[in-house]
């Protein structure tokens, strides 16, 4: 899929995936790239899996990608990382939040949540960045910024200048929450670089 960079975000409704996708698109736009995104709406929400895709490059045609094409896979929930693993390109970076959301199929007893998921993640993703984003968000000032922590880690796998990321965050989040979000972003970036 030519010279375009693709980022695949996945998680569960209500985790702030769409905001994260907006910040990535803004960062790419500010870097002078053509951008396309795609999101799931409607019946796909209500506690179901939510995915978003951002693509950027000199010229982007398709808003969707082929399997095996995402440069970064960013999963806000552990099981969802595995469900979307086949979208990651060989050698791509997987950012996985150490966070579990139990689906109703599990609590009602018709399915089980995988055990020792950490091992499975290691197996699926040679380049894995796995940490508790909620914890880091709380340290930054609010657990609501977990999405921006994950975004910070994601940015490490992309080639956009740091300044455009900060600019994109300034452009996207409300001024009131800017400070925490910048801190959260830095924390995520540090986590992926260590």
């Amino acid at each position, binding site marked *: *899929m*030519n010279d375009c960079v693709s980022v695949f975000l996945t998680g*569960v*409704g209500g985790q702030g995936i769409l905001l994260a996708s907006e910040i990535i*698109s*803004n960062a790419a*736009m500010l870097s002078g790239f*053509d*951008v*396309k*995104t*795609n*999101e*799931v*709406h*409607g*019946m*796909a*929400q*209500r*506690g*179901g*899996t939510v995915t978003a895709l951002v693509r950027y490059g000199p010229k*982007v*045609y*398709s*808003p*969707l*990608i*082929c*399997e*095996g094409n995402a440069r970064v896979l960013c999963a806000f929930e552990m*099981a*969802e990382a*595995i*469900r979307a*693993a*086949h979208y990651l390109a060989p050698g791509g970076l997987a950012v996985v939040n150490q966070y579990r959301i*139990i*689906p*109703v*199929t*599990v*609590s*009602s*007893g*018709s*399915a*089980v*949540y*995988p055990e020792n998921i950490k091992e*499975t993640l290691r*197996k*699926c993703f040679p380049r894995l960045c796995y940490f508790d984003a909620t914890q880091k968000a709380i340290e930054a000032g609010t657990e609501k910024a977990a999405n921006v922590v994950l975004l910070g880690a994601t940015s490490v796998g992309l080639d956009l200048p740091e300044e455009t990321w900060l600019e994109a965050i300034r452009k996207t989040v409300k001024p009131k929450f800017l400070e925490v979000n910048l801190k959260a972003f830095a924390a995520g970036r540090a986590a992926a670089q260590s």
Partner: protein
Amino acid sequence: MKELLSGNEAIARGVYEAGVRVAVGYPGTPSTEILENVEQYKEHVYCEWSPNEKVAFEVAAGACLTGARSIVTMKHVGLNVAADPLMTLTYVGAVGGIVAIVADDPGMHSSQNEQDSRQYARFAKIPLLEPSDSEEARDFLVAGMDISEKFKTPVILRTTTRISHSRSLVELHERVEHTPQGFKKDPPRFVPIPAWARPMRVRVEERLRAMIPEVSASALNRIEWANKDLGIIACGVAYQYVKEVFPEASVLKLGWPYPYPDDLIRQFAAGVKRLLVVEELDDFLEEHIKALGIACDGKNFVPNIGELSPMALRRIRAKMEGKELPQVLPVEEASKLPPRPPVLCPSCPHRAVFSALGKFDVVVTGDIGCYSLGVAAPLNRMDTILCMGAGISMAHGMKIAGEKKRVVGIVGDSTFFHSGITALLDIGYNKSAPVIIILDNRVTAMTGHQDNPGSGLTLMGEPTHEASIEEFARACGIKRVFTVDPLKYDAFIELLKNSFETPEPTVIISRSPCIVHDHSGLKPALKVDPDVCRTCKLCLKIGCPALEFTEGHVRINNLLCGGCSLCGQICPFDAIS
């Protein structure tokens, strides 16, 4: 200035820029955000949610006859509801521009079918425009207005989920005002009684013929010459996938595919060695191209079920080239993951209704809305779904067919106003006796919480009369009308029992606001007392996402629980409070 807009936001922008005066519609994924975004221009554009698509279409038609530019938005199945006014407005024709925006959902991400609404353009003999990104979505709305006024015809602008919900860059322009002239009386033009409808019928065909040269010459259709071994005809989002997967091929991109641009198609076909038609769903173009006597590939390679994708096109390419494409499958561990289907939210009032119905051996004819999720495990309490309004009418049909079990029909408030009223009128008129439950959560929740005729607010944010479901029910001839809160669980079950024992039609209005829309009902999270809980797991049968069973204990996730207390009322040991 360029902005990153979704297809729906871009259409809304086009509505503003094209000088549209009246924008109406009924919500439906993936079309909903068009009107939601028009609302920001309400100083220039009147906008409203109509009760259903037929009404919306007629409102837009009325506006158009005064010379005002108007649009009407709907999802694909909405056009079935609006087909009646569509099929005759094509005769009457347009004065001010009128564009019907219809959003198809190939792949059925959030729909009950995946019809190809392009067929309606051919059926109604009117122009069809199909954008392939957000910039085109805006441009085509504006172009559609011009075409509509030039040829005095309604125009269909068709999007799909991937156009409506993908974002891409759009250059913004200023609004150009179009001031309506006012209605000018002209009965032979506006009144299709048979004597006048017959000449109108002739004009429909003449108009179509007059458009054909224009379509072939239009900038909305273009040939992108490249390697001539393979030429591809594509429209909509499929064009983008083609550019991605067949970068070397020549492409005929059709943004205005109907009436068919025959000259352009012939010219393109003559210039390439092999011709392939790539279109989502039906063989709308291919069938016609073959009828022109032009040989082409199409549905012999391109599936007519579901949506296309770059991956699907890579498979098509490999098949055409006789190659094997290594399949990239989900990792093996993915097959062992627990499914994560959509569910009713924690504290959703609908849950109590389905949980209560689980106690009775009845047939439940259901309908479309958040409450459709009542069909899924562990609630399993909906037996049929057809289309909006059918939850009531099918209950009546089962009754008069002599169904032995008690029949319960279920619709939501928005669905009731959309097309449940006439169905209830049928029950009153023709005297059958189902139990009808109207789930009045005060909002059109499924499509993202739009106001409706019962909620007391217009799309433009003005307070308005709240339509009374009780009064409608009585006016339809129903004597047993009850309004209850289903979260008063025992009383609700008692009412159901009592209604099932009565040989009269009953309407139960289950009134409890959607907790996601109206937070006023939120209460502190409940807790399970581990010393009292006997892990009977009865509470897990209501499928609340806040209830978890981990390490042998039932727990309530206090981040998710909204304190509705349903689980507490179900627990036989009073372990939850």
